[in-house]
């Protein structure tokens, strides 16, 4: 797969997950204990044999860059290719375009032209996925396609509440014949996963010949390419797929991981390990008197209190008498003695004081808390 360049576009709409993106960009949000969102797409690309992945990102990238500096963790410390950084300058315009990767790529058109690969695989950074992209490449070859759009088929029973989504209209042989935009509603059908596989010369053509305003949304792009002369097909992903586009979605997906089958499917596939930055931390320590149930606990954490139905990142301390339930605790937090944390997302580096209570109210599914002032 040395002929495929991966591109991860970190320009998602963050307006519904602002609490967690104040200090970091979407891709750097911690997830499932020891991971960050970008680990999933990055690991999928590497596991599918890609040797070069370009990162498109704007401001607030410190957290992301610290994470990616361990490029070895994804085996992307290569002399040819490896991890490539393409920062974009015009952040405001790009953010307005709500995730359109074409606007960011326009800034790096020359880099794109100079890259040796003939095919491009583009994705956002906020999807939880375990898919062998080789299947997508094979499918493209079989169909002699110019462009492949990856989608998941969702029936009425499992309709997804989405902030923003596109569904694909497909012909009998899976050719893309139209696209529908959905905003803030339950969505069913062929939901586009925002992963596109495209011949590089066609991508360049589209960028060069499109007007600035036409690049404003992914929907308009898909209209251009599907109504035009390009052979565009949909590839159905039957495996796990989720997009983290809002804080409630983040909470729900985190809790879903605590279901055994989901955990198995995402993390325990022999051929598709999910990689993340390696840190030198001691194994988690569960002390005498601790009670731990149905929880993910990361290295460096020390637990003396109660932890149930929760996800703990690295280096979290839960002291004696503290209770943590239905919560997500990000790294380096301290839950002091006899504190109570129920149904909460506790952001990185926070301290919950002794006997303090952070409990969601009856009318919310969760509450967000940080004791750190990032401003």
């Amino acid at each position, binding site marked *: 797969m040395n002929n495929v360049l991966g591109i991860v576009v970190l320009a998602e709409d963050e307006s519904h997950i602002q609490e967690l993106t104040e200090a970091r960009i979407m891709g750097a949000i911690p997830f499932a204990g*020891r991971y960050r969102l970008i680990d999933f797409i990055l690991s999928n690309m590497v596991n599918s044999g890609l040797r070069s992945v370009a990162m498109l990102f704007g401001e607030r990238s410190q957290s992301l860059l610290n994470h990616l500096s361990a490029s070895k963790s994804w085996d992307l410390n290569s002399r040819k290719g490896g991890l490539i950084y393409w920062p974009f300058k015009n952040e405001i315009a790009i953010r307005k375009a709500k995730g359109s990767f074409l606007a960011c790529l326009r800034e790096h058109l020359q880099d794109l032209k100079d890259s040796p690969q003939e095919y491009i695989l583009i994705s956002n950074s906020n999807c939880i996925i375990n898919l062998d992209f080789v299947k997508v490449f094979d499918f493209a070859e079989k169909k002699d396609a110019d462009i492949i759009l990856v989608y998941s088929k969702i029936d009425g029973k499992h309709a997804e509440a989405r902030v923003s989504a596109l569904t694909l209209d497909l012909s009998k042989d899976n050719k893309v014949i139209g696209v529908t935009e959905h905003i803030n509603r339950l969505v069913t059908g062929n939901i586009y996963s925002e992963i596109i596989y495209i011949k590089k010369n066609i991508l360049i053509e589209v960028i060069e010949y499109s007007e600035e305003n036409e690049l404003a949304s992914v929907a308009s792009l898909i209209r251009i390419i599907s109504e035009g002369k390009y052979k565009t097909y949909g590839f159905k992903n039957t495996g796990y797929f989720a997009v983290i586009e809002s804080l409630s979605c983040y909470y729900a997906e985190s809790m879903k991981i605590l279901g055994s089958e989901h955990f198995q499917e995402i*993390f325990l596939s022999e051929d598709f*390990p*999910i990689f993340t930055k390696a840190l*030198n931390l001691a*194994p988690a320590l*569960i002390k005498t008197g601790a009670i731990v*149930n149905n*929880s993910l606990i990361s290295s460096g954490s020390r637990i003396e209190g109660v932890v149930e139905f929760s996800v703990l990142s690295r280096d979290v301390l839960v002291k004696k008498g503290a209770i943590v339930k239905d919560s997500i605790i990000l790294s380096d937090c301290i839950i002091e003695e006899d504190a109570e944390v129920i149904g909460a997302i506790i952001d990185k580096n926070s301290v919950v004081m002794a006997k303090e209570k952070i409990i969601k109210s009856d009318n919310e599914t969760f509450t967000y808390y940080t004791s750190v002032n990032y401003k």
Partner: protein
Amino acid sequence: MKNEMVAMILAGGQGSRLGALTKNLAKPVVSFGGKYCIIDFVLSNCSNSGISTVGVVTQYKPLALNSYIGNGAAWDLDRSYYGVCLLPPYMGSEGGEWFKGTANAIYQNISYIDLCDPEYVLVLSGDHVYKMDYAKMLDFHKLNNADATVACIETSWEEASRFGIMDLNDEGRIIDFEEKPINPKSNLASMGIYIFSKKYLYSHLEADEHDPKSAHDFGKNIIPNMLHSGGKVFGYKFNSYWRDIGTISSLWEANMDLLKIDPELDLFDKMWVISSKKKGRPSMFIEQATTISNCLIDEGCRIKGSVDNSILSVDVMVENEAKITNSILMPGARIGKGAVVNKAFIGPNAIIEDNVVIDSTKNQKVVDSDYCGITVIGDNAHIVAGAIIDDGGRAVSLLNSLRRV
């Protein structure tokens, strides 16, 4: 890049007293403390002490050791200049031979030391568990203008006859040294950690090599000879946690030391981090209502049963109603439903099926043996459902090649 000191880690011994645990791999890569291999301590100490040129002398079953160390990146030893280098026995134009002893292992690798061209040579063992700043020991060596410095520690009187025992004068100079004495005169034991001024070391290695009566061992030959010939040999007193992992019981005890309240060896210390190679596994997952108490649990573990006072390495699975106590489960070990494991080592990737009982603590023979009541199940062993193992695991290790018991 000038090298002031190169470290030579002796990692070639067989470690036969660890029984089934070293059947297929060298002792330095035996799993320790849930996340580590024994050699992680000495490699991390080198890295943390600012030593970036490290030779690892290998001999016995080196495959796992070689692949574990790789280019040394896990310990920041993947340097543009020198870094870590594996040193196996080799053939020369006049033939080749195995390393005959610790001193001979260094003698045969003089060309490596020459290549790195240091002023001082630090000789270390790959099977010790401790945190030590070798830079401080080198300062001590230089301050005394010593020819050789031997790190030493006060040990219990009962254990003293296991070690090289020394006596120091007021300046810290060694005035008496006896290797494994039957009636020790002191309890100051050599830790098998030496700093030598290079030229002085070379002359003694050369002389020792041509002595047909020599066992070519640092403790037995080199250090006593240095003292006899009037060399300036000093003892560097160390007074923190240090364990020589020689036997099953010392390995078990050193692991259990980590579970004490405020353990002497603090793995959570951010000032002296012990690094290890990572596989990139998910956070450990405690799946259902179960009791877990006083345990160190590494990434990738999935636990449904109860675990008490134990250490679980990466990717260990414990099924429903299993009961683990006082045990060390090595990477990838799997414990079936309802199985009971007490005071045991479960080797890497061993499969313990449902309702197996592993407990030798009531078998007086095993309790009185050097296993001290510990059961050892070797790597990849497969214990079929319902089996009862109370013989220390000896039958299993004998049949291990069959992979089924």
